[in-house]
């Protein structure tokens, strides 16, 4: 094994181009587990800890460009207003020790269906900034997850940052596990209200081969909210609408039975989380967003 220690982003890209099999390591919270247990013996480890740029974020007009290695702890502490869904998701990651090291870049690189950040990114809307010596491209989050622990990165690409849409309305995140800390999600659900476009977006974790959106459920809800004039009148969402939304979210799952839970439990739990997160965010929209008059 070789340990590559690039001092700059340019050096890291050159190293990845020269050694496409090199495994990037930042927080190490996934990679080191595999090495410790002899599940993986990469030819090259590509250490990204020295690249300071990866630990920074910039808040723009529309989105936050979040450096790939910004630890979850920083997201919780500093980006709760801009990225509430992702901040909530970050708080559910493992433990303080893990949150101090791990970041969204690693979550995306590993692309586990159980990664905690994914439902929040899907719901908020995001693009992954992938770079290689050949250039930079932005991969829409909907196209990023390609299979179980597979993503759309080319072998010579590294994740530089993720561009997450700034919240224009309430966001929520919910996760099922046996306790609050140190839990790999049995399943998880992210929901974001987007009053500016009058749309709702979702993200489902750990209930399909990849993180997915419940698009049919979103379409149904968007139409129902539009028809009933809910965005303007701020009425409580009709229970039958909420139930139909929950059922469609459950139907968007394609889960498996495993040690953490059964497929039918996951479907059921996703439906429950969908209804709850919709209720929570809508209450917040009615209570604050609408009253402040920030939405016409």
């Amino acid at each position: 094994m070789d340990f590559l220690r690039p001092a700059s982003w340019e050096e890291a890209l050159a190293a990845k181009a020269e050694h496409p099999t090199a495994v990037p390591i930042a927080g190490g919270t996934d990679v080191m587990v595999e090495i410790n247990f002899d599940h993986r013996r990469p030819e090259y480890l590509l250490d990204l800890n020295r690249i300071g740029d990866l630990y920074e974020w910039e808040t723009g007009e529309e989105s936050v460009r979040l450096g790939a290695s910004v630890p979850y702890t920083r997201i919780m502490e500093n980006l709760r207003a801009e990225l509430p869904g992702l901040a909530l998701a970050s708080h559910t990651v493992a433990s303080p020790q893990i949150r101090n090291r791990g970041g969204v870049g690693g979550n995306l690189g590993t692309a586990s269906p159980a990664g905690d950040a994914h439902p929040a990114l899907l719901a908020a809307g995001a693009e992954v900034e992938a770079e290689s010596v050949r250039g930079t491209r932005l991969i829409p989050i909907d196209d990023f997850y390609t299979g179980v622990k597979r993503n759309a990165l080319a072998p010579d690409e590294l994740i530089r940052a993720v561009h997450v849409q700034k919240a224009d309305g309430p966001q929520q995140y919910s996760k099922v596990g046996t306790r609050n800390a140190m839990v790999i999600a049995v399943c998880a659900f992210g929901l974001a209200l987007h009053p500016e476009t009058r749309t709702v977006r979702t993200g489902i974790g750990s209930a399909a081969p990849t993180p997915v959106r419940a698009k049919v459920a979103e379409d149904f809800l968007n139409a129902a909210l539009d028809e009933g004039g809910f965005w303007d009148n701020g009425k409580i969402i009709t229970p039958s609408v909420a139930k139909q939304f929950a059922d469609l979210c459950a139907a968007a799952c394609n889960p498996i039975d495993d040690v953490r839970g059964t497929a039918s439990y996951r479907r059921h739990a996703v439906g429950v989380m969908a209804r709850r997160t919709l209720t929570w965010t809508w209450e917040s929209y009615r209570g604050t967003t609408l009253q402040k008059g920030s939405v016409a």
Partner: protein
Amino acid sequence: MRVNFTVNGRPQEADDVWEGESLLYVLRERLGLPGSKNACEQGECGSCTVRLDGVPVCSCLVAAGQVEGREVVTVEGLAEYARQRACGTDACGMSHVTRDTSKNWQPKPPSDSHTGEGTELSPIQQAFIDAGAVQCGFCTPGLLVAADEMLEHNPNPTDADIREALSGNLCRCTGYEKIMDAVRLAAARQGEAV
């Protein structure tokens, strides 16, 4: 490969480090610092918690090569770390340490290795003893490092704060109640001292 870094204020050099080796292994097996415990090797238990540039991390999940040039504090250095913090930066006259003196450095033999009597302890260590928060002791070093760091930033923690700060440290003996007592005790003593 060779890794140079600072441990408990002393420059250290580890040789023949395997590229996939963890910081925990380097501390325990190459530098003779077995205070950080090796249990789960997957970040679940927190017994290997150390501070890396001040931040609590699981040393089993840090690749050795990643600590090059950085500063690590382990439970062995906690008393000195707490002492320096208590009297401000360098105000207490931390002597200049070179690599030569660090190579010759030996831990002071405690007068009683069971009770720790006669050895200098940090306030959090003393509180764990006084509250009876140590049973088998395997989780203790990680809990000490995590609890000490929390009290550094949050001198008046609520029970919820303590539980959250220690949520990455598993104890299978105590049921956590005595550990909660110990952290409350350390916080109270810290408050009195100010």
